[in-house]
């Protein structure tokens, strides 16, 4: 009797698991998730007009956004939507279970299997790009050379010893350690070969140093050397934010300096003297040195007649690595891919420049381990669909032939 009850319980348990499995692998779920992604993309496109692209992408598609309310034309829409990251993750599970595991196996299903594999590959590529890609920009004038890209968003603090008037390498405190110091928290940072530590506190993601003589601090901000950090709301174009923080130097004997301001909006670094050694401390957007140099030979912009609106812009560059040159042309939709970096022709400057003006070229530099995965996945999906089509065609022709033979 007991054994019978146990078996019934197991059956019930199995049936619950089975129901979950059926739900996760269902075509209905796939359809609902794809429609949801369509709605999220549409709403994000509308919301980014007011909120800016970066903030909107974070709100709609970041792994940190589980659910949110859309805001269109400044008005909150009272519908709680799931984050796009988790919708995509669920779609990935659905595709694996429904499109690869549960799907009927057989020669006729090979095409479908291949296509579903392509979609799984594409979703995985999106996840890898989300977690591991980096974006920055590089601006170069004609005849100039650059070997570094600047991050769009991340502010870092750099400490550098000065030798013969020049910086001699930099120690870099990454933004992920600074953004945590936005309340009353502080952190002491030590550096190899540097005879002092830095105590950082009061991080603000968008702030400007203000002279207390011009405007008294309104919220009890710390004033140091006549200046304080005034917090500002985040800009719609988030890359225009300028971060700031307060710092103190802690020397080896435990003596502390007065607090000083580090700001993304500063024009010069702070100088620290320790004995006969001199160091600079500065806050700036993170720089990524490239393993090669890029020199802009010529930049050509074709404008629509009678306007400053570019119809096409093209950069002829020389990539220099280990003394060897390679000539490359970068233009819209024709990026340069090399050693894991992709250089897209992004824009040009100075703003408002027109025909005949001296200009510089701006590249968006992307380091994305899954850069080509979407392209490969599309080939896989297309191949799978072709196989499905040919299989169906073969079946149809075979059936028609059999029918003809039968009638004969």
């Amino acid at each position, binding site marked *: 009797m007991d054994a019978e009850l146990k078996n019934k319980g197991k059956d019930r348990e199995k049936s619950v698991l089975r129901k979950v499995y059926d739900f996760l692998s269902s075509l209905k779920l796939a359809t609902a998730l794809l429609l949801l992604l369509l709605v999220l993309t549409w709403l994000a496109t509308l919301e980014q007009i007011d909120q800016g692209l970066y903030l909107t992408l974070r709100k709609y598609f970041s792994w940190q956004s589980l659910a949110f309310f859309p805001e269109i034309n400044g008005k909150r829409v009272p519908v709680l939507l799931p984050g796009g990251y988790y919708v995509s993750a669920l779609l990935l599970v659905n595709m694996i279970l429904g499109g690869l595991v549960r799907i009927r196996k057989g020669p006729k299903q090979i095409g479908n299997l291949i296509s579903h594999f392509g979609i799984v590959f594409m979703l995985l590529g999106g996840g890898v790009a989300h977690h591991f890609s980096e974006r920055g920009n590089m601006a170069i004038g004609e005849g100039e050379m650059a070997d570094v890209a600047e991050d769009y968003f991340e502010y870092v603090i*750099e400490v550098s010893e000065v030798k013969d008037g020049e910086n001699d390498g930099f120690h870099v405190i990454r933004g992920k350690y600074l953004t945590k110091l936005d309340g009353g928290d502080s952190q002491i940072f030590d550096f190899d070969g540097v005879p002092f530590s830095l105590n950082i506190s009061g991080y603000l993601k968008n702030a400007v140093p203000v002279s207390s003589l011009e405007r008294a601090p309104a919220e009890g901000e710390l004033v140091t050397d006549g200046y304080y950090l005034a917090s500002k709301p985040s800009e719609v174009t988030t890359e225009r934010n300028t971060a700031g923080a307060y710092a103190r130097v802690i020397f080896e004997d435990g003596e502390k300096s007065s607090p000083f301001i580090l700001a993304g909006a500063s024009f010069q670094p702070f100088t620290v003297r320790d004995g006969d050694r001199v160091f600079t401390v500065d806050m700036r957007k993170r720089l990524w040195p490239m393993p090669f140099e890029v020199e802009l030979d010529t930049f050509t912009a074709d404008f629509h007649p009678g306007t400053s609106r570019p119809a096409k812009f093209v950069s002829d560059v020389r990539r220099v690595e280990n003394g060897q040159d390679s000539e490359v042309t970068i233009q819209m939709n024709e990026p340069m891919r090399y050693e894991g970096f992709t250089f897209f022709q992004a824009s040009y400057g100075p703003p408002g420049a027109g025909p005949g003006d001296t200009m510089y070229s701006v590249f968006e530099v992307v380091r994305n381990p899954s850069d080509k995965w979407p392209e490969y996945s599309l080939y896989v999906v297309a191949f799978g669909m072709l196989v499905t089509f040919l299989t169906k065609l073969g079946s149809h022709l075979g059936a028609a032939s059999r029918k003809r033979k039968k009638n004969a």
Partner: protein
Amino acid sequence: MKAFALIPLTICLGFTACEKQEERMLIEETRRVTSKDTKPKLFATSDERFRDAKPSPFKGDAPENWLTLPSSQMRILNYRFGESGMGEVYLSVSGGGVPDNVNRWLKQFGSKPLSPADFSALEKVEVVGTEGVWVEMAGRFDAGPMGGAARSGFALAGVVADVGGRILTIKMIGPKPEVEAEKEELRQYIGSLQVTGN
């Protein structure tokens, strides 16, 4: 019972004995010098660090009792005066024409724009080798949404001049008694202004 009473005391003592140690982190990430790094300006002052300090295109002999402030984007020369701490004098370069700027000042005191005849009747003063118009106004000062709350009992004195196609304004604003007391100093200051050529 007494033993229980000692528990909170012991806990308090325990906490005070363990002074909170600040967290430390060793930074290992470094980067090399790149094409974007320029020669650093060492021992820069806060003004140099936080203002793109450029030589002023104008200079003048400000009275000793005016406090010189750093320049800003809108104020090429910038001063504060008076016991209230609300008196300001600043020199700016504006757009538009001389009448537009005079009328903008008048509007801040709720006055109607001047007719051409009224404008022609304004006192003329010399400033950086050209002729400007002297403006005075008193009453309730409201500089608009960007200028903070409106203030009663204020006064304005200043000059608007067209200097080579650029509109130069020297504006003194503050509580009426303080502006009245400094008006002559302002006239002398305006007379001392020179173009530096920067």
